[in-house]
């Protein structure tokens, strides 16, 4: 090695009661290197990063920082060493300003005014314009991430850890962030880039450590690899591909939304403004958009968890259902997988078997007001076997499942009821690639059987992989629909910023467009 590595890990091991999260991991990052940590969900990436940032203490192993062994006590200690971390889920206070939020994490600052000045300075310098006086709730997700990044940059980090940073960004915003990261690397800052998106890693990173099941399965130079070879290292087998043949049938209109207005229940939520679209049997319609643009509100209205004032706004198979509660809509063959799994899609404290009853009770599990536990158990067994849910048994508590397996189980419960209309929110959020493929394939199979499927997702790749048509939601408005074959990720990306015919940012001039982008991305 030419120079001392910025960070070296030797034999890092962390054991949790039921799982070995990190098993003797070795890794080395040079100054100015962008290093990918690649692995499926649950592979142990986050645990490793938390150990570096001082959030968890490793059971054994050594962290060598600039050539010296250190024991990182806590995040403040890590920050003093020059380690910054941008978490996947932001920790910002919505009612405070950018400056106030950043001040909370700073160990030293003179005054709010001087801090605001520095924020402006740094944000200009790195091409990440940000108004320090704005309140967090008024910022888009992309801008919130920018706050987190600037919070790190203010401390002149020598190592920046980015945990799945692009999952909330439009393709345009991803470009912009990559520029910033490259620039930081040129200045000598090392970057640990955690992701499972192979194309991003191949484009951005100089080197990669691949982790599977808590162990390092390979080191690679991403530019020299193919997506297939990286995937093989990451999941231990070939990347499974969904088979998506064109829909054969052009079915009836299954879901029709007309002129739906709905104010949000959350004071920082997004109101829905005149939303209209429809889904036919035999097709998958994707709803793209950056989170927080009205997806939650739309799903609550479609599922019936919040009723709408005009019952004709929403129709299932031609029947107005806007005034009907979720169970009555389910009786009209609606299936729904919410993005919150535990506590909404599934009941904590109940077994898998009992969780089946939650929505599948209408399929012969209740007789004379009494439950037929046998039926529920059979249904649970079928969910487990058809979707290869990894669990001890149907009688285990639902909380014993990992996130991906819980998602598989909930999706299985909804799909195995053979709904004519299935609505799925964030189908593969935090789900590993193997499970994600099972879930995606099952939605495609359902479509091929003539059902209508509506998928709301932030992952453009996923939507392009499985959907037939796409619409985009931005600031509570939806775009016209477009066939997947007739559009591109770039176009959808622009639409996600509200720039679509009839969209909130339509007709803005080119100058204004770049300004707009800084607001949205």
């Amino acid at each position, binding site marked *: 090695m030419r120079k001392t590595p910025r960070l070296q890990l030797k034999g890092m091991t962390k054991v949790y009661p039921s799982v070995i999260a990190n098993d003797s991991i070795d890794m080395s990052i040079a100054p100015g290197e962008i290093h990918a940590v690649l692995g499926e969900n649950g592979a142990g990436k986050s645990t490793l990063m938390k150990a570096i940032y001082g959030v968890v203490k490793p059971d054994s192993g050594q962290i060598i920082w600039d050539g010296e062994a250190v024991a990182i006590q806590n995040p403040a200690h890590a920050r003093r060493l020059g380690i910054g971390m941008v978490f996947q889920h932001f920790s910002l206070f919505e009612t405070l300003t950018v400056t106030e939020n950043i001040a*909370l994490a700073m160990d030293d600052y003179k005054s709010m005014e001087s801090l605001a000045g520095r924020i402006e300075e740094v944000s200009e310098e790195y091409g990440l314009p940000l108004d320090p006086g704005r309140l967090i709730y008024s910022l888009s997700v992309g801008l919130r991430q920018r706050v987190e990044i600037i919070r790190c940059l203010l401390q002149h980090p020598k190592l920046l850890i980015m945990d799945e940073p692009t999952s909330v960004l439009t393709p345009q915003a991803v470009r912009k962030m990559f520029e910033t990261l490259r620039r930081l690397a040129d200045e000598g800052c090392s970057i640990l880039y955690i992701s499972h998106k192979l194309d991003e890693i191949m484009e951005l990173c100089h080197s990669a450590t691949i982790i599977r099941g808590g162990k390092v399965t390979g080191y690679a130079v991403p530019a020299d690899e193919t997506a297939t070879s990286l995937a093989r290292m990451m999941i231990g087998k070939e990347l499974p591909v969904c088979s998506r043949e064109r829909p054969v049938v052009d079915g009836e209109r299954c879901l029709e939304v007309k002129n739906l207005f709905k104010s949000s229940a959350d004071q920082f939520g997004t109101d829905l403004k005149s939303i209209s679209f429809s889904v036919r049997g035999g097709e998958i319609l994707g709803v793209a958009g950056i989170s927080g643009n009205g997806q939650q509100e739309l799903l609550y209205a479609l*599922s019936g968890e919040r009723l709408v004032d005009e019952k004709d706004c929403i129709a299932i198979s031609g029947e107005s259902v806007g005034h009907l*509660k979720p169970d009555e809509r389910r009786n009209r063959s609606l299936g729904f997988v919410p993005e919150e799994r535990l506590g909404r899609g599934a009941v904590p404290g109940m077994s898998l078997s009992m969780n089946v009853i939650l929505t599948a009770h209408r399929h012969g599990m209740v007789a004379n*007001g*009494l*439950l037929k536990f046998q039926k529920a158990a059979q249904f649970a067994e079928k969910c487990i076997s058809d979707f290869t849910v990894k669990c001890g048994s149907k009688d285990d508590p639902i909380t014993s499942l990992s996130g991906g397996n819980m998602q598989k189980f909930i999706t299985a419960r909804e799909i195995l009821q053979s709904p004519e209309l299935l609505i799925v929110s964030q189908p593969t959020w935090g789900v590993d690639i193997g499970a994600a493929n099972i879930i995606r394939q099952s939605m495609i199979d359902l479509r091929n059987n003539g059902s209508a499927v509506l998928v709301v997702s932030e992952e453009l790749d996923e939507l392009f992989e499985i959907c037939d048509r796409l619409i985009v939601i931005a600031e509570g408005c939806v775009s016209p629909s477009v066939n997947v074959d007739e559009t591109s990720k770039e176009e959808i990306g622009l639409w996600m910023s509200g720039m679509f015919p009839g969209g909130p940012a339509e007709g803005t001039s080119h100058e204004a467009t770049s300004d707009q982008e800084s607001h949205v991305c």
Partner: protein
Amino acid sequence: MFVKIEPRSEPSKAMKYLSPLIAAVLMLISGLIIFSLLGKNPAEAFHAFFVEPVNDLYGIGELLIKASPLMLIGTGLAVGFRASIWNIGAEGQLAVGAIFGGYFAIIFYDYSGLFILPLMIAAGAVGGMLWASIPALLKTVFNANEILVTLMLNYVAVLLLALLVHGPLKDPNGYGFPQSVLFGDSAILPVLVEGTRLHLGVFLALGGVIAGWVFLQKSFTGYQMQVAGLAQKAATYAGFKYKKLIWIGLLSGGLAAGIAGVLEIAGPIGQLLPSVSPGYGYAAIIVAFVGRLHPGGIFLSSLLMALLYLGGESGQMNLDLPSAVTGIFQGLLLFYLLAADFLIHYRMRLDRSRLEVN
């Protein structure tokens, strides 16, 4: 140095069922310490408190008489508690049940027949449910907090009973004492075992526990109540009608308490008095929780709580203990149970590192 409270990654399953036992043992130990501090011989006190009351057939009968309303009300309350509907008003619902049942005993004083007791019980049930429907209505329409409403209505109900026995329901030949006439034989629950006061009501209470078990463990509505209690969002997601569950949760408590009120006046008391319950409505809350909101557990915990009542009386008579002693034991039991439950889910750890705002 800070004491840090952190959630346990896996709460012990065995402990969930052992914690009522642990709580009972700790209650016993603390009780004996209190006895010693009062200058009583702990062994003697223990005997007087927990053995003497039940060492003969009569005592066993008394135990069951006391346990009956507790298990009945405890089961009724558990239905609501499962759905996180906190009915603290069983004491008042019991009083109103007694008023309704007692009214029919008084107006049919000159009659005899098999219709009187069922009529009284039905009236008591209606009375208890009417009283419980007030918080149910306020909660479903105005989202009023049912804890406060039910609690405050207890005072109203108990004073209403006192008002009635001082006035319209007072025995005209009772020398002005605030009490009703002694009920006729047709309005008194028949005694089951010669030489005891054990009456037919114990079967009614057991029937209630069994009905509660079927409802909570086997029925779809019981399942819905449990879902609503564990995760309200999941209940909304499934489309369960939460307002219906509120009504069921509160009315089942009212129903059970109302019937328990009739069992009291048609059983050991035999007339309406200004006070017809030694706090059964409150004690049943403890019974429900010590019994893990499960009718089987509630049956067992009602026996324990009944023993505390008997022990308290025996302690007053034999050891000159103050009457507050029953309340102390009940409080200790609930306190230790809550503490044990908390420690099942959380552990405490000394933490030397500074609290850090991240």
